[in-house]
C-alpha cells in the first residue's frame, strides 16, 4: 500500500516580517500601558551561552548572545469573558533560525457555568512527569529556544470545555499545524546535518492545513489525578531524514506522519510521595507502538532542621521501538534533585542525570535561579553530554556541553 505524500515548501521568514512583528509588539505595549483595565506583564531578558568544546561542524561558534522579550496583555471584559495576548521575540547573534518571533497566545475566553470556550492561539499542557513530556501533544515544541522541549509554539484552535462534577472534558479542534523549530546551520545543539525548515513532507494531502482533533477526559479523585485522551492529526514529532535541499546542500528534511494517539497520565500523592505515570499508544504511517514514562518523587521538608526542601526524583522512560525511535529517551533512567532553600529570593536548584541503560550515553543537567531585588531574575543552566554512544541520537551533540546565563527583567 502506498500512501500519498505531499511536499510543501515554506516561505522563509524575511527580515522585514521580523522587524514588523517587533514593531507590532512595541506598539501594543505602548497602547496597553495607556488603557485602563488592561494588564500588562512579561519580561525582557539577555542571554549568553558558552560552549565548552570546539564545534564539530562548519559555521558554528563557541558562544552566542541573545535578547528575548515576552510581553503579555490581559483584559477581563466581564466575569465571563477575557482576552489574552502573549508575544515572543528573540534576536540571536549566532543562529538566524534562533532569531524568531512567535504569537504564543492570542485568545478569547468565554465562560458559562456549564461550559467554557477558548478561541484563538492557545497553549495547553498535559502531563505529570519531570523529565520526558510524553503525553503533551497540543502545542508544537519550540526546540530552537531550549533543548529541554518545554518551550512551545502557539497553536491555533477552538477549545471547548465541559467542567462537570464527574470530570472535565476538553474538545479541541486545531485547523493549522506548526512545524517544530530546529537550530540552523550555524547553531549549536544540532545533528551533523542541520534541519532545513524548507524541506518538509506531510503525510496528509492537506499538509499543514489538516484539521487535528483531540478529546480528553480528566478528573481529580481524592489524592489521584488522571487524564485520558485520544488525538487524531499530524504528529508533532517529525521523522528526520537525510536529503539535499534546493541549493544542493546535504540537510535533514522533516516528515510529519498522521497519527491516532491514545494518551494516559496519572499521579497519586501520599504523604511525602508523589507517583507519576504517562503512557501513549501511537499508530500512523509507521508501525503502531507504545511508550511510557513514570516514576516517583519524594520530598524531604525542613531538611536537617533548616527551612530548605529537597525533592528526590527517579523516573524511567521506555519506548517500544527501542533504538529505532528518534527520541533520545527510549530506555533511559533519570535521577533528579530539586533543592529550594525557601528564601526570600525564591532560589531553586535542580540537578538531573539521564542515563541510557543500554549504552553509555548520559546527560547531566543543572538549573539554578534566584530573584534579584523585586524585578530581576537570574538563571544559570548547565548541560553536559557525556560518553555519548555513536548509536545514540544524541551523538551529534557530543561536543555541545554548554553553560547558559540569563538575566531577566520582569514587569
Amino acid at each position, binding site marked *: 500500500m502506498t500512501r500519498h505524500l505531499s511536499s510543501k515548501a515554506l516561505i522563509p521568514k524575511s527580515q522585514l516580517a521580523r522587524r514588523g512583528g517587533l514593531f507590532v509588539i512595541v506598539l501594543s505595549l505602548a497602547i496597553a500601558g495607556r488603557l485602563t483595565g488592561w494588564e500588562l506583564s512579561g519580561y525582557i531578558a539577555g542571554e549568553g551561552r558558552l560552549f565548552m568544546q570546539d564545534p564539530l561542524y562548519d559555521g558554528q561558534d563557541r558562544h552566542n548572545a541573545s535578547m528575548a522579550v515576552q510581553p503579555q496583555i490581559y483584559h477581563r471584559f466581564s466575569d465571563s469573558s477575557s482576552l489574552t495576548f502573549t508575544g515572543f521575540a528573540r534576536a540571536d547573534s549566532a543562529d538566524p533560525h534562533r532569531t524568531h518571533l512567535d504569537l504564543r497566545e492570542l485568545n478569547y475566553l468565554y465562560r458559562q457555568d456549564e461550559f467554557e470556550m477558548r478561541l484563538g492561539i492557545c497553549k495547553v499542557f498535559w502531563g505529570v512527569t519531570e523529565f520526558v513530556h510524553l503525553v503533551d501533544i497540543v502545542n508544537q515544541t519550540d526546540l530552537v529556544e531550549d533543548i529541554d522541549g518545554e518551550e512551545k509554539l502557539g497553536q491555533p484552535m477552538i477549545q471547548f470545555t465541559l467542567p462537570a462534577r464527574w470530570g*472535565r472534558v476538553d474538545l479541541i479542534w486545531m485547523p493549522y499545524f506548526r512545524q517544530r523549530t530546529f537550530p540552523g546551520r550555524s547553531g549549536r545543539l544540532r545533528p551533523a546535518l542541520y534541519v532545513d525548515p524548507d524541506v518538509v513532507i506531510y503525510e496528509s494531502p492537506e499538509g499543514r492545513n489538516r484539521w487535528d482533533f483531540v478529546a480528553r477526559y480528566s478528573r481529580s479523585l481524592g489524592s489521584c489525578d488522571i487524564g485520558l485522551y485520544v488525538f487524531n492529526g499530524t504528529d508533532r514529532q517529525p521523522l528526520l531524514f537525510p536529503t539535499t535541499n534546493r541549493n544542493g546542500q546535504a540537510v535533514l528534511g522533516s516528515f510529519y506522519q498522521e497519527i491516532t494517539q491514545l494518551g494516559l497520565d496519572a499521579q497519586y*500523592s501520599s504523604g511525602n510521595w508523589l507517583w507519576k505515570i504517562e503512557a501513549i499508544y501511537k499508530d500512523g504511517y509507521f508501525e503502531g507502538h507504545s511508550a511510557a514514562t513514570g516514576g516517583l518523587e519524594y520530598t524531604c521538608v525542613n531538611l536537617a532542621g533548616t527551612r530548605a526542601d529537597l525533592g528526590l526524583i527517579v523516573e524511567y522512560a521506555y519506548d517500544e521501538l527501542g533504538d529505532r525511535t528518534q527520541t533520545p529517551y527510549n530506555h533511559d533512567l533519570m535521577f533528579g534533585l530539586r533543592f529550594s532553600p*525557601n528564601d526570600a*529570593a*525564591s532560589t531553586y536548584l535542580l540537578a538531573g542525570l539521564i542515563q541510557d541503560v543500554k549504552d553509555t550515553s548520559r546527560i547531566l543537567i543543572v538549573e539554578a535561579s534566584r530573584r534579584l531585588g523585586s524585578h530581576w531574575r537570574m538563571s544559570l543552566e548547565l548541560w553536559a553530554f557525556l560518553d555519548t554512544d555513536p548509536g545514540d541520537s544524541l551523538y551529534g551533540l557530543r561536543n555541545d556541553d554548554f553553560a547558559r546565563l540569563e538575566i531577566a527583567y520582569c514587569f
Partner: protein
Amino acid sequence: MMSLAILTLSILPLLNTDATYRDPNQFGLAIATEVDRRSHGFGDLTADLTMILRNSRGQESRRRMRIQTLEVPDDGDRSLCVFIEPADIKDTALLTHTHRKTEDDQWLYLPALKRIKRISAANKSSSFVGSEFSYEDIAGQQLEKYTYRFLGQEVLDGNDCYVIERVPLDKRNSGYSRQKAWIDRSEYRIWKVEYFDRRGALLKTLCMRGYRLYNQRFWRPQIMEMVNHQTGKSTVLIWSEYRFGLGLKEDDLSTNALLRIK
C-alpha cells in the same frame, strides 16, 4: 428570635462552667469550637494580601496576592491564592482543598508552562513562599486536626482572654509540638498564638491587630505579624478588600479555575 436561641444554646456549654471548668480538655475544645463556629458560615470570601518579609538585618521584600476561600459543607475549605507580585511569579497560583478527615490536596499552577502540578501534602511545616508562615499556618486550622486544653485566663492588651493549647494530631507532618492561643472572651477572636517547635522550644509568635467586623458577623484582622524567635526574621500580612458572600462556586476553586487565571 429563633437564631438568637440557637446562638445562646451553642454558647451555653461555655457559660455552664462548673462542669466544663473541671475538665480542661472539654473546655478547651468548647472554646475552639466556638472560635470555629464564629469564623465560619461565611460561605465564601475574597481578599487582597500583602506580605512583607523582613530578615534579621531589617531588609524587606514584598509579595502581593489575591485570596479566595470557599467553605465546603461537611468538608474543609477550598482556597486559591494567586500571586500578583513579585513580577517573576505573577499568576503563579496555589490551590488547596483542606479536608476534615483525610489528607489535604494541593496543586501549584505554573503560568509559563500552563502546567498544574500536584504537590505533596506533607509540606505542612514548610515555609510558604519564603515567609515565616508555614503552609499549616495559612491553610486554615481544621477543628478536628488538633486536641485542645484550657490553660487559664489572662488579660492581653486590655482584653479578657481565654488561653488554650492545641496539639496537632498529625505529629509526623506538623512542624509544632503545640500551640498556645489567646482568645478574647467577648467575641472569640484570636489575638496571639505562640508556636512551639518539635523539641518544645518557643519558635514563633503570631499577633493579630486591627480586627474589623464584616457583614455584622465576621471579625477579621487587618494585620497579622509572625516573628520567628530563633532566626530573628519576621513576616507581616496586611489584609484588605475583604468581601464576603460573592457567590463563588466549587468550580471557581478547582483545577479548572487555575487554567482560567490566564
